């Protein structure tokens, strides 16, 4: 468990800016490696954590810190009590937070700047109290991967467009692939947080957890194998896709196999979670605690979006009207030209319509993930 300051017995908190443990009372600072914790045993497979429970709603809070908040975020009740010390499996290493809470907040706020679609109510919620630093458990694996794919694509041959088929089979070796070790965090979101730079990794020392929250991996080996295979397939198929020519390419059939090499590393990687409620729905924006990359989809104000849509529509309508009127006046009598124009317009419209619809669907899907109640609870369980 976390140690106290050797000078004044104050609480030591890890400061990402200085990469040192700092005492909030006397201002002394120590390197985490230099601090000897009488409770910690680096040889042990486990390290201690504190579990707190809310006397009102029964919610459980896990932290390796020496202090816990005085209220429960589930029910707002102050009756939160120390419950027990639990032993958690000691990770092989961790990447310490490099981005401070203030920088993380600044990164989020910079995304808000000059953004007319984010509701003011949401902008006002970008305050330190809504940001929590959590060490997410990851498995860092080396894997061999084999995949066979059968694809199709439309290839232009002289004047005709023909459907062609492609065969691709191959293998690759992947190193240091981070696999999110928590079932509750959506893999599609955790994937976007990458890259994590492993040159900055340290041997695990629980003192780095001071001032932050952490979680343990709840995956089984079968889960990990499945996640590795899917992750490798995702990376591999993207590269294979680009080796095929033609339009409207798609996978018809794929089979793939992954082999996790021995001794995957169990590591804690730093992520800031910015959580808030908007219109009674939870939202979570993630910030990579090492690189500062912001991931997530912000809610938008429907009224403003509708106004902008109709303004854009009016603008397009006006431009198109002028264009068509001009054509009509200048080329009156050139029926063929107008027919060609209509066909071209229709083709362009169909292309941009489908792209627009697919794009908006993707953004809506992203916001569904951001709005996930499970991630919200995941963060709230590690309340500040």
């Amino acid at each position, binding site marked *: 468990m976390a140690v106290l300051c050797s000078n004044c017995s104050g609480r030591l908190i890890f400061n990402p800016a200085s990469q040192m443990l700092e005492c909030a009372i006397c201002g002394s600072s120590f390197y985490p490696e230099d601090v000897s914790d009488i409770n910690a045993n680096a040889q042990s497979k486990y390290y201690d954590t504190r579990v707190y429970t809310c006397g009102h709603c029964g919610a459980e809070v896990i932290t390796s810190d020496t202090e816990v908040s005085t209220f429960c975020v589930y029910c707002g009740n102050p009756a939160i009590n120390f419950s027990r010390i639990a032993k958690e499996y000691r990770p092989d290493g961790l990447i310490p937070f490099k981005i401070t809470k203030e920088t993380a907040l600044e990164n989020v706020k910079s995304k808000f700047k000059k953004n007319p679609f984010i509701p003011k109510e949401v902008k006002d919620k970008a305050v330190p109290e809504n940001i929590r630093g959590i060490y997410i458990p990851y498995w860092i694996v080396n894997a061999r991967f084999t995949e066979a794919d059968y694809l199709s694509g439309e290839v232009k041959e002289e004047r005709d467009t023909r459907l062609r088929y492609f065969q691709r089979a191959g293998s690759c070796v992947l190193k240091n692939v981070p696999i999110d070790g928590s079932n509750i965090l959506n893999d599609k979101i955790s994937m976007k947080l990458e890259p994590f730079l492993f040159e900055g990794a340290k041997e695990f020392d629980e003192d780095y957890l001071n001032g932050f929250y952490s979680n343990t*991996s709840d995956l089984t080996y079968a889960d990990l194998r499945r996640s590795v295979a899917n992750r490798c397939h995702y990376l591999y198929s993207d590269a294979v896709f680009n080796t095929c020519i033609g339009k409207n390419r798609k996978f018809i059939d794929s089979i793939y196999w992954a082999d996790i090499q021995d001794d995957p590393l169990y590591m804690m990687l730093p992520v800031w979670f910015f959580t808030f409620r908007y219109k009674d729905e939870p939202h979570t924006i993630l910030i990579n605690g090492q690189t500062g990359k912001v991931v997530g989809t912000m809610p938008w104000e429907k009224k403003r979006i509708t106004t902008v849509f109709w303004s854009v529509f009016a603008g397009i309508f006006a431009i198109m009207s002028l264009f068509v009127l001009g054509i009509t006046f200048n080329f009156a009598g050139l029926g063929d030209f107008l027919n060609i124009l209509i066909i071209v317009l229709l083709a362009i419209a169909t292309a941009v319509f489908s792209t627009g619809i697919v794009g908006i669907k993707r953004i809506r899907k992203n*916001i569904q993930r951001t709005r996930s109640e499970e991630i919200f609870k995941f963060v709230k369980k590690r309340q500040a």
Partner: protein
Amino acid sequence: MESVNAIQTDALLIIIIVSAAVFLFTCVAISIFIMYRILNKFNNFGDTECSLYQYSYDGIRFKVNKDNVALEEKNEFMEKYGKNPYEEVERTIPELLIKNAEKANSEKG
């Protein structure tokens, strides 16, 4: 003569309706596309992912890389690669993953 005029009027009406529909559809389509670009730029953050080459130094070693393949060859191809090449390989499983499996099994039981 009147029936010819009536046919011409109907044809003109159809042309006007079709042209108006194409015109409106084009306006809506372009507006939706612009809205998608705006939302993607302003409200969708960090929508980027790493590529294979972030984790693989030598990329993919292709055993088959064939274009313009006949559709009938598909089953033969899939059958050839349908077996797990790593089936015989035995790996050591980290203790935490074994414990998690035991815990999951006991919770199910």
